[in-house]
């Protein structure tokens, strides 16, 4: 049982990390969700082997109950990662309505410093900064 759980955690981390390296935003978010599941399972796994009774029964000695602390922590972690992921989804929706593009752009600033000869980038950058300045007022 434990081996299966350990392998599942490993697989979740691996797939999550792989998806994180994608350029498509929605895949990054899915990757984060998988990573979140992996880390929550890890937290749960830290509480000892599965199969122990969680509730008080007269027949079970006191030290054989499942440790409730990791479960409480896992619950907290689930709530937090869920909340942040939903916020991230909202932000990426906002990004989509603004740009109609789900891809992570190249950094404009990097492009400017990287290739000063490529005037297209430069002009684009200057225009966008001008736009920023105007909008900032």
């Amino acid at each position: 049982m434990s081996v299966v759980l350990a392998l599942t955690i490993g697989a979740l981390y691996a797939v999550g990390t792989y998806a994180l390296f994608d350029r498509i935003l929605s895949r990054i978010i899915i990757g984060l969700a998988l990573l979140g599941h992996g880390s929550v399972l890890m937290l749960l796994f830290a509480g000892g082997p599965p199969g122990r009774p969680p509730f008080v029964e007269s027949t079970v000695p006191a030290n054989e109950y499942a440790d409730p602390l990791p479960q409480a922590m896992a619950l907290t972690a689930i709530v937090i990662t869920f909340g942040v992921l939903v916020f991230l989804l909202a932000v990426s929706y906002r990004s989509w309505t603004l740009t109609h593009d789900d891809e992570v752009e190249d950094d404009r600033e990097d492009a400017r410093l990287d290739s000063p000869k490529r005037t297209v980038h430069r002009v684009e950058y200057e225009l966008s900064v001008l736009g920023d300045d105007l909008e900032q007022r």
Partner: protein
Amino acid sequence: MKVLIGLPVLVPMGAAALTLLTLRLTRLQTIISVLASAVTLAVSIALLIQVETKGVTAVAVGGWSPEVGIALVVDLFASMLLVISHIATFVVLVYSLGHPRTRDAGAVFHPLYQAMLAGVSLAFLTGDLFNLFVAFEILLTASYALLTLGGRREQIRPAMTYIVISLVSSLLFITSLGLIYAATGTVNMAALAIELEGIPSGVRSALGLLLLVVFGSKAAIFPLFFWLPDSYPTAPSPVSAVFAGLLTKVGVYAIVRSQFLLFPRDEAWWLLMVVAGATMFFGVLGAVAQQHMKRILSFHIVSQIGYMIMGIALFDVAGLAASIFYLMHHIPVKTSLFLIEGVVVQTVGTSRLDRVAGVARSRPVIAALFLIVSMSLAGIPPLSGFIGKFALLQAAVASRQWFLVAVALLVSFLTLFSMTKIWNAIFWGEPFVPLEQEAQSSRVPVPMFAATLALVAVTLGIALSAGPLYDLSERAAVELIDRGPYLQATYLP
């Protein structure tokens, strides 16, 4: 007096709830928010006085035993940071009342701001590693929303980088919490300090490194700093100011707390010294290449973090005391630099170096304020930055880390260089009216101006009271390295 310990968390939390309830009553909401901030500041000062006389104090929340429940602990280091942070946040709150972008953002600003303050206080006060994670999430979640306030196009993409990076480091934090719990069976920091000594040294250093990566990416140390100069400049000025002054410093606090309490060392740590040198150097190099005041200042945050890490990496009283003093000086100085940037944008419409000139002619007071804090940042005597850097260099010389000394001096010159670059471009020279200015009302709102003035006065106050403050930092450092008082206060209440 133990009840005081919870208040810096409870008051802003309560204020966040109240300001949410009063969303439509703008005047009342503002009063609640300012009042709560003032109370938090007062409580923090009371805590500092109490800890200064009576030593480390701990309280078990809800009466649970520390292994199961959450302990709040306040020692000198935590209470000093609490005071300086809440001075900065109070000033920024006043400033935000006058700033058009936060004022127009409407009612949501205050609840978010108060929630962030609660997270910051909790991070300083908690004596429980899992609770530290929760504190980070509270302040980060509030900061995500503050960063995207207004939802403009240029804010969204950098904010996304910021959220993804923070979330990855939070997930890594959960992972390390799982591993730590599996290895020791507790997440109470005082209990961990004892338990971690009993586990194999390989596991122990792996856990220490994991926590360093987690807190390092929040503190923006090399090579985990790339998200910061991207995202901070896009927020409204008051928000960038409080992020710049505080959020990365909470990461530094967590590094100090975890490394000194959980993984103590007797001698300087080469890895952290290399990281410190690289953080200073690459941060300042990034700043030199920039053409926008806010971006220059953002890169300087990274470089300044390097100085703090440098003192920490030495792992002795002198280094740590210098780092603590540097933190105390850095928070108000960095915050006020961003506040001044906001004032410049307000008066001339932009803070691009090639679009503005001669602000000193029309706004001599603002130029003078900038000169004071920028010279303090660069470390010119007799300002507070000089004292902090001098103490750091002295500590590095005493432990014979010549390489670090050389890097720190070089970076100091480069800092001075980029500060004079801002000065020459924006404040000095013949004023010319940028195209955009015609439609711009160039009057600076009173709250913005007063707040900036007050915070610069605080930085001068730090320089004036450097002697007692340094003694206090030294006592805090001794307390951190000794560990005894902290363990006694928490684990055996």
